[in-house]
């Protein structure tokens, strides 16, 4: 009996140990920080170290100070149209960028997947290669290209498209933000698409062609639906971080480019209001997580 039990328990434990690792990871690096931020979002600012009150010293302390917690910061977010507009503008910029990324990324991934096998690894390498340079330096390089006296102006003047006194005014506008985002996130779109397209069984397309299906139709009927998991993965990988993007709009955008990342920065650093900035962050998380969960549930049903 005893022998049999150990035999049963061992693989059971092994399986759980394996599953526990990602859960533990999420618990430690996602749930715990989230709870801390959520707790701060229910506090009030104070001139102190750290700059909010109440500060909880232990579990027993938590119960005595529970009454000090307040949802005022969340109410405050609804009172000023600034936050609403910043969320909306971030979502709009992320949506437009993701669509642009898909339009630019799909042909690249398609071309890579259709390239001769010997070339494919080199092409994947080429997509990853820019990562070897610091992200910040690459964004700075765009400043050099897009600024009024920059390379783009010089090139267009050289080609005679612009007169000698005309300049390109893209830098410090939203267009520059889109250029910067599409450039920076392109690998995150291309790689999942490539992974999906590469697995595609070419014989399906041959069969379609044999049966008289024109290439454009077979693309929309066969290739695109089969690459859908890659499209979804790529869109999520890009959309989510773009919503919270701070560096690119800060460097390439103008002062009027309103994004939630910049609003969060102003709350945290300029106002030193950790509670309100935590509330902004919690709302941002909800905005991003809820649609993803709904989407996943629907995927499961389907």
């Amino acid at each position, binding site marked *: 009996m005893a022998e049999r039990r150990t035999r049963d328990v061992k693989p059971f434990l092994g399986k759980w140990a394996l599953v526990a690792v990602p859960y533990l990871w999420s618990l430690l690096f996602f749930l715990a920080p989230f709870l801390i931020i959520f707790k701060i979002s229910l506090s009030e*600012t104070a001139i102190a170290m*750290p*700059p909010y009150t109440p500060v909880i010293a232990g579990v027993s302390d938590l119960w005595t100070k529970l009454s000090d917690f307040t949802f005022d910061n969340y109410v405050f977010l609804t009172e000023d149209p600034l936050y609403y507009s910043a969320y909306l503008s971030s979502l709009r910029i992320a949506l437009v960028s993701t669509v642009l990324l898909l339009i630019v990324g799909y042909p690249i991934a398609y071309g890579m997947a259709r390239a001769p096998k010997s070339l494919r690894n080199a092409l994947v390498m080429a997509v990853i290669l820019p990562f070897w340079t610091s992200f910040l330096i690459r964004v700075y390089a765009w400043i050099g290209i897009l*600024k009024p*006296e920059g390379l783009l102006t010089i090139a267009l003047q050289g080609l005679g498209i612009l007169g000698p006194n005309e300049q390109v005014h893209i830098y410090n506008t939203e267009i520059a933000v889109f250029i910067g985002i599409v450039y920076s996130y392109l690998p995150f779109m291309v790689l999942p698409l490539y992974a999906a397209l590469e697995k595609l069984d070419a014989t399906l397309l041959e069969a379609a062609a044999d049966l008289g299906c024109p290439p454009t139709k077979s693309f929309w009927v066969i290739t695109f639906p089969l690459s859908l998991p890659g499209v979804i993965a790529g869109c999520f990988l890009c959309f989510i971080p773009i919503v919270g993007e701070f560096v690119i709009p800060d460097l390439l955008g*103008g002062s009027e480019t309103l994004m939630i990342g910049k609003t969060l920065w102003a709350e945290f650093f300029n106002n030193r209001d950790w509670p309100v900035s935590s509330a902004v962050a919690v709302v941002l998380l909800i905005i991003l997580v809820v649609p993803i969960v709904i989407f996943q549930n629907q995927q499961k049903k389907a």
Partner: protein
Amino acid sequence: MTKMVRQRLLGAAALTVALATGAVAQDKVVNVYNWSDYVDESVLQEFTKETGIKVVYDVFDNQDIVETKMLAGGSGYDVVVVTGPFLARQIAAGVYQPLDKSKLPNLSNMWPEVTSRVAEYDPGNQYGVDYMWGTTGIGYNVEKIKAIMPDAPVNSWDMVFKPEIVSKFKDCGVQFLDASEELIPAALKYLGKNPDSKNAADMEEAGKLLASVKPYVQKFHSSEYINALANGDICLAVGYSGDILQARNRAAEAKNGVTIQYVIPKEGANMWFDIMAIPKDAPNPDAAHAFINFMMKPDVIAKSSNYVAYANGNLASQKFIDPAILSDVSIYPDQETLANLFSTTPYDAKAQRVLTRVWTSVKTGM
């Protein structure tokens, strides 16, 4: 390489040095946190040579980040350089430790005029020693402004706050500091109000003035204008005195045909003080005192002033300062100008929220 990248790299380098020297005896290191482009680095080497204490030097270009680090605690810095109102608020939050003046014999070199003004932020000068001081005014490209508007009122805030004037310079480029605590007081002064007003209606009126010239401002940024002015990318900036003078020197060194001039507008400008202080949780307080004392040596601080083109709060150092700098009224203003300069006090949480909100609405139109 652009400034911000350089700073990040510097920061990374400083961190590496800090990690690498972690094993060295504790008192042999001093971790200093100061504004970027704000010291003659040979001074730091001299300090190490004289005391055997290694300097780990880290820089910032945004005080809000400094304050956030300080309030979070455990920053690991021994000496931090912050501006008056920030110092006052951080002292109230309990960030700093009182100075041990027995370890600072060079305090006798300080300039009473500056020390007494600093005492407004740090009553009794218990926590800090002035490092440099300066003003927030206007920098401009002499040739370009002259070509566009020969009779431009270059010595007045009209240059940047009067829409019909500043609009003329839109195409050649105008930048403002991204610092609400500088621009709002300047706008209040221009409107004839108390520049230190914490009244919401006053701040909103200043915001309206700034919003009226916003269409002509290419960017609000706190360090980009140095290179932009020097390279001729922009022709007008509201910025810190020494930064604009550094732009002037860089342009002169590059011989690119750009001449930069700094003016303190006649209506009056903000006079600010950058003050060295020691955090309560500084790992090496003795080294920190030694560093502050060293920076009060007349020849040392004069060397730094000569390099960065900012005035310092050290009276004894003035005989070592380059006569061209000492006689430059845009650096060491004369009595008449000095009387016109104003200072600001810290904003409480409520006033700060109004200030930031007004500033956001100036920048985004929201």
